[in-house]
């Protein structure tokens, strides 16, 4: 099983992955793959990153027993607390790694796409820390519903560019970011926020996020029965799964019902990789529709497509309504307000505990990918 998660040959995860990018980007992707491989094998680079993760980003994040919910649901639930990481989500793990890499490659600018704004905030943060410029592309619709994060990015000195095309969400922001990269591929590093995109991104981002799973594995008193995480592009889940893929633990990814590439999509090519994609019969990419801006994305990282195809991981969906009550229930039971994205994983556990999918007595590790401050306005509006 562990071979599933190793370095993908030619950027492939089984039938998925690859590098479907304009010729103008091919050399840059190649250079990035080599640079990351070299850096990842370089103990100095690893040490610098580990140090930043510890003294700057607050790692390790705790593994918190959810005592009340566990008792209520008849399971043992442990929460991996990425909500406590600096900037408020797991996104910082990836961003610090890539920003260090960009500096090592002599780049002066970071370009990023963002949905919920967490990746944008993390990118702006790393740029400030390392003295790089940052330009963040964000759909107009996401700008409206994630005002807090827009203010955070500009306070950090980043330029936020509103994207007005298509569904005005993450998919379109990603298109714009890639266009911007094509135009400045020499000076800019495209700091992709999840495990999608052309090789080496799916592999690199999963490696940078595996700290979640590796830590949880070390912190947990046992190998759990089930490991569960929400899935947007799939980075927090990929990072979590990486720590458990070689154990008997079941791996569960939870998608937004309105953005369920695994559950409702078909194989396709978007944003540089072959993976599962929400699309119509002709191949036009569908617009995702979820209350969680970070899951409002019609694609998913290719490794998930592969893990799903070979049956190593299972994928389910939950509805916006379930998600809203999950945020509230977790808040009231455990005193933790998680992000709407993360609440997808919680909602699945709440729904399935005691069913054959999650039998009573199950030991569960759930990654809380981020905190919910950014979502308070949205939640207030549906109160």
């Amino acid at each position, binding site marked *: 099983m562990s071979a599933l998660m190793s370095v993908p040959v030619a950027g492939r995860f089984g039938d998925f992955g690859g590098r479907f990018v304009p*010729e103008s980007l091919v050399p840059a992707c190649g250079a990035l793959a080599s640079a990351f491989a070299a850096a990842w094998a370089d103990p100095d680079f690893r040490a610098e990153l580990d140090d930043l993760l510890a003294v700057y980003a607050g790692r390790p994040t705790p593994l918190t027993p959810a005592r009340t919910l566990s008792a209520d649901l008849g399971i043992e639930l442990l929460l991996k607390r990425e909500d406590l990481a600096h900037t408020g989500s797991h996104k910082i793990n990836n961003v610090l790694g890539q920003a260090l890499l960009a500096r090592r490659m002599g780049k002066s600018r970071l370009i990023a796409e963002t949905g919920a704004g967490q990746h944008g905030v993390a990118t702006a943060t790393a740029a400030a820390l390392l003295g790089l410029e940052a330009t963040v592309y964000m759909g107009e619709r996401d700008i409206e519903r994630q005002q807090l994060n827009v203010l955070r990015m500009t306070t950090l000195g980043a330029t936020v560019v509103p994207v007005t095309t298509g569904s005005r969400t993450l998919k379109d922001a990603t298109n714009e970011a890639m266009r911007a990269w094509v135009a400045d*591929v020499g000076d800019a590093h495209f700091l992709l926020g999840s495990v999608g995109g052309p090789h080496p991104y799916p592999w690199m981002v999963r490696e940078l996020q595996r700290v979640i799973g590796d830590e949880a594995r070390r912190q947990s008193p046992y190998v759990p029965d089930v490991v569960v995480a929400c899935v947007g592009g799939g980075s927090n889940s990929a990072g979590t799964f990486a720590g458990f893929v070689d154990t008997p633990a079941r791996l569960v990814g939870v998608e937004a019902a309105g953005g369920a590439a695994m559950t409702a999509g078909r194989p*396709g090519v978007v944003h540089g990789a072959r993976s599962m994609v929400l699309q119509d*019969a002709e191949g036009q990419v569908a617009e995702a529709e979820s209350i969680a801006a970070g899951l409002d994305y019609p694609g998913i990282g290719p490794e998930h497509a592969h893990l799903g195809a070979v049956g190593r991981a299972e994928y389910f969906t939950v509805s916006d309504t379930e998600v809203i009550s999950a945020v509230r229930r977790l808040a009231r039971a455990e005193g933790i307000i998680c992000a709407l994205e993360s609440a997808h994983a919680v909602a699945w556990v709440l729904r399935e505990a005691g069913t054959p999918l999650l039998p009573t007595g199950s030991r569960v590790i759930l990654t809380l990918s981020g905190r919910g401050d950014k979502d308070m306005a949205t939640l207030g509006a549906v109160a």
Partner: protein
Amino acid sequence: MTAKLLVPYLTAGVTENWLDYLLAVQEAGADAVEIGLPFSDPMLDGVTIQESSDRALARGATVASILRDVRGVRDRLRVPLIAFTYANLVYRPGPAVFCRELADAGIRGLIVPDLPLDEAGEVSRAAEAAGVELTLLVAPVTPDDRLAEIVSRSRGYVYAISRMGTTGERDALASSAAALTARIRTAQQRANPDGRLPVLVGFGVSGAAQVAEAGRAGDGVVVGSALMRRVLDGATPHDLGAEVASLRAALDRCDQEDSADRTAYAEVSGHRG
């Protein structure tokens, strides 16, 4: 006549009468026409072609409807058509099916900007089997060895991306265009000194001056955003024909000035003659 090639780009389905634009540019002297099959996420296109694609999709244009349209005017078409679209539209039905459908509609070539050399195998085989020419793209940043490989695998033309960036009008033509076409010719010379594919220069070419400059650099030029901008702004097929005619004239002028180093592309291109 062996002039420089003028290849206008049109987003298929952008208006109800899009075929009138197609026929008008043919009459105005196009040597071939790229027709864009609109895709929801045109990653390599600038605002103008994004907007035309969105408009076509909003009108309900589909690959099937566009190919039906094309079949309808088949007997009036004298120049080759080249489909320009993104990989997902090719993979959804499958490359074999997709390419056969192009061929059935009489479409001669295919350009897929997000399908680089390394990923092109399956589509390339399917295109060949269907008798469709899969044209590959070369960028200013493409290294020499890779460039040679692309040149040898490209069919119909070699597409030289004139600048780093998306499609769309620019104030001036990048100097990288001439450098790139020179590198491509060197590679062609080395591989097959006796015959070679025409090199088309595209991405951000607009206006008579840039067309002439691009024409001098390569064997021909693709003009897309500059034309689609006019269509979006309400130009009639007649207006667009006049625009293309003026580009044709500019290109021919440059061609005459430049005739010394002209290539006998008619002999190597499957598209003319």
